[in-house]
């Protein structure tokens, strides 16, 4: 096809998509049966409009009823406050009340007020319609937006029907906004943002709310969505700093499993926790977000991990950690909304005290540089949707940055090991690990495997995980081949890494044939869930242990339950016992009590 044909085809496609939304669900609408979900609407729709698989209980849970009663009381107070929105009394009470949750019935009004929507809207009268017209003629994002509208909040009453009224609004707001803010255009994730706004606002309000969220310095989401995601990298770096300071054990746990924050937290930052925490909690976060701005995102990210640290520390592969954070917590946060918000408030205070409540001002490239609402004719490549053959400078930069983050994480992990272990080489061949803290799952044994596993940039881009299987089996089997020390394992790693500099290209023809396996491909999961590490816990005086300050809630309690100076051996996960082979004979390896004291 030549360029002319391609342009014509793109125009036809765009036109067709727009016409479908114009028509909506009226007669003649082309809707494939699969495009409309079948739901039992009645009895299964919750108070926010989401339709559930199962019938909701016919009796209201007494606690829920109580909450609704409280909310009704609050509505009265809010109504009173709304009458004098700009008064000093309101200013005084607003903060506390927003943190308690804006009554759902008043969210439409209050959200608009918090965003000072009316002002922006009046200043730009007629602009929205203008953008709609431009979009119809020139939008290059129609196809992408169309496919995302078709899958955004489909379990919500508003968006259930294909080309239903709210789907029409969502499509229009997004295509119009992509014209208005041409620097960002449309980025996946924005449909979630607009989708929530449209649950509480009409179309034009949602358009301007979106604009405020992108461009007001309080929220500045522009830098999140624009090419190269500059704000995302800045916030992720800050998130890492917070973890390092407040929860170093957890950070190490993530690093050990090659889990970069970008993998589990993207939607936290991109859509303010939509589809990552239960919707009722998500709304509470949005309430606070609209009041105090982006600091809440940082603090909530911290809060989620702080509240669930223990559960996460128990998970030993990337797969289950990500699943826990992204899927499980969305279905069930395990804390009620009030407790979660309470923890969030505390996190905000703790971060402020540590001067970590905000990552600092945006970089220059996060700030919009093009004027809004000024039409720029799309290029031929944009219209046809040609992929760029090469990365732009910004994209390359992002790529490098993201990769560097991994490298830094790994180095930090290694340094940490060097600092805390000192002469770790002496330990590596040992059957036991010396783990001074029972709380901290990153035992030296596991750490040791990272010694010297300094990898190339290329190699570290994704994941890497301690190869626990090798260790645990050695320790457990007590086989005579204990000469298989970590040293060989370690050098394997570095060889695998070193040979892949720059390109990620690794061949196995290296001079050094690895003993077990090289990790030229970063591993995402440990091959064995480290079921049977033998640890010796050496009790120590709690006074020798630096404690994390108690006010951050991340207190490490020393295992001071050991009254004497015994050495304690503990076998974890004893249900995973495997038969052992020793001198060709099968021997069941079992310790009756999980802990043995060596006098």
């Amino acid at each position, binding site marked *: 096809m030549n360029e002319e044909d391609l342009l014509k085809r793109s125009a036809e496609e765009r036109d067709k998509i727009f016409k479908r939304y114009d028509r909506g669900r009226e007669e003649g609408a082309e809707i494939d049966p699969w495009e409309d979900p079948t739901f039992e609407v009645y009895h299964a729709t919750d108070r926010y409009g989401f339709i559930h698989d199962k019938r909701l209980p016919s009796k209201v849970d007494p606690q829920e009823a109580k909450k609704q009663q409280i909310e009704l009381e609050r509505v009265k107070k809010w109504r009173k406050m709304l009458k004098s929105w700009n008064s000093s009394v309101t200013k005084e009470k607003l903060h506390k009340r927003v943190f308690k949750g804006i009554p759902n019935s008043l969210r439409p009004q209050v959200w608009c007020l918090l965003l000072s929507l009316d002002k922006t809207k009046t200043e730009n009268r007629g602009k929205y319609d203008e953008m709609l017209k431009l979009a119809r003629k020139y939008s290059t994002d129609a196809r992408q937006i169309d496919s995302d509208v078709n899958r955004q909040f489909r379990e919500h009453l508003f968006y259930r029907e294909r080309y239903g009224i709210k789907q029409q609004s969502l499509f229009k707001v997004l295509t119009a906004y992509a014209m208005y803010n041409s620097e960002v255009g449309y980025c996946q994730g924005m449909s979630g943002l607009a989708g929530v706004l449209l649950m509480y606002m009409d179309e034009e309000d949602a358009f301007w709310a979106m604009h405020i969220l992108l461009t007001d310095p309080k929220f500045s989401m522009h830098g999140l969505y624009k090419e190269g995601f500059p704000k995302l990298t800045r916030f992720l770096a800050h998130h890492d700093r917070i973890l390092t300071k407040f929860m170093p054990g957890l950070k190490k746990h993530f690093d050990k499993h090659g889990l970069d924050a970008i993998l589990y937290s993207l939607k936290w930052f991109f859509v303010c926790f939509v589809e990552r925490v239960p919707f009722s909690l998500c709304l509470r976060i949005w309430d606070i977000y609209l009041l105090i701005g982006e600091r809440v995102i940082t603090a909530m990210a911290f809060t989620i991990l702080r509240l669930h640290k223990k559960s996460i520390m128990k998970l030993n592969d990337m797969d289950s950690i990500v699943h826990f954070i992204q899927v499980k917590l969305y279905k069930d946060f395990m804390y009620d909304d009030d407790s979660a918000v309470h923890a969030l408030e505390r996190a905000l205070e703790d971060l402020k005290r540590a001067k970590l409540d905000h990552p600092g001002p945006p970089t220059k490239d996060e700030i919009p540089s093009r004027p809004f609402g000024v039409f720029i004719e799309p290029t031929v490549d944009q219209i046809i949707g040609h992929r760029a053959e090469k990365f732009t400078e910004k994209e390359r930069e992002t790529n490098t940055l993201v990769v560097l983050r991994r490298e830094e994480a790994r180095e930090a992990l290694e340094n940490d090991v060097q600092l805390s272990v000192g002469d770790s080489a002496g330990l590596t061949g040992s059957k036991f690990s010396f783990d001074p803290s029972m709380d901290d799952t990153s035992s030296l044994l596991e750490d040791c495997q990272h010694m010297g596993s300094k990898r190339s940039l290329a190699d570290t881009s994704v994941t890497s995980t301690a190869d626990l299987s090798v260790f645990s089996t050695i320790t457990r089997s007590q086989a005579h081949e204990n000469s298989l020390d970590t040293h060989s394992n370690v050098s394997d790693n570095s060889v695998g890494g070193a040979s892949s500099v720059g390109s990620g290209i690794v061949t*196995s023809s290296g001079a050094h044939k690895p003993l*077990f396996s090289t990790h030229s491909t970063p591993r995402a999961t440990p091959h064995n869930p480290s079921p049977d590490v033998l640890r010796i816990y050496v009790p120590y005086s709690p006074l020798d242990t630096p404690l994390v300050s108690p006010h951050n809630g991340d207190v490490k309690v020393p295992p001071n339950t050991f009254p004497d100076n015994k050495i304690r051996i503990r076998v974890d996960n004893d249900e995973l016992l495997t038969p052992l082979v020793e001198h060709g004979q099968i021997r069941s390896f079992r310790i009756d009590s999980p802990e043995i004291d060596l006098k």
Partner: protein
Amino acid sequence: MANRTGTAQRPNGQTQGKICQFKLVLLGESAVGKSSLVLRFVKGQFHEYQESTIGAAFLTQTVCLDDTTVKFEIWDTAGQERYHSLAPMYYRGAQAAIVVYDITNQDTFGRAKTWVKELQRQASPNIVIALAGNKQDLANKRMVEFEEAHAYADEHGLLFMETSAKTAMNVNDIFLAIAKKLPKNEQAGAPGGGGQGRRLVDGDTGPKAAGNCCK
């Protein structure tokens, strides 16, 4: 590529089979069904309104081939061009890739070709690439002919199948075909292949792909 291989040994000394782990990445234009293919393969499920992948998703699945257990670490990427800058961190070091297009949309096939080109230029030289023409259940709306894609795949040394995440057609098959093509013996001759009783993930490898796993 040095994939992880090990020989699981039973107490009686018989070889039980190798376990290999491979990193696999899914690439392709937005909304062609990358996440749906993974969901079908890993969980045997299909959602009509699969939420759009932002950034990337990670899942694992294990399949068995004769005496070898192959564990796939699957990176499912976002399709929108904007997220392209993140893609190299996922395909780097991958031993396998599935490039997906939608048979009802000619443009997505064009994009698939661009991905193949990029992989052949930037990814590991030995990478096994499969081309998947997804949404085969919508064949009545077909815009990309089977023969056209097949010829392209042959020419570029790709595995090729038309798939349907919705009906499950060829979904397990394409992953299995990849597993078969991946080299699995590089470590087999490694010296000191481990002490006795060395046990790699044996029997606790998580969910099995329906109908194609070891008994």
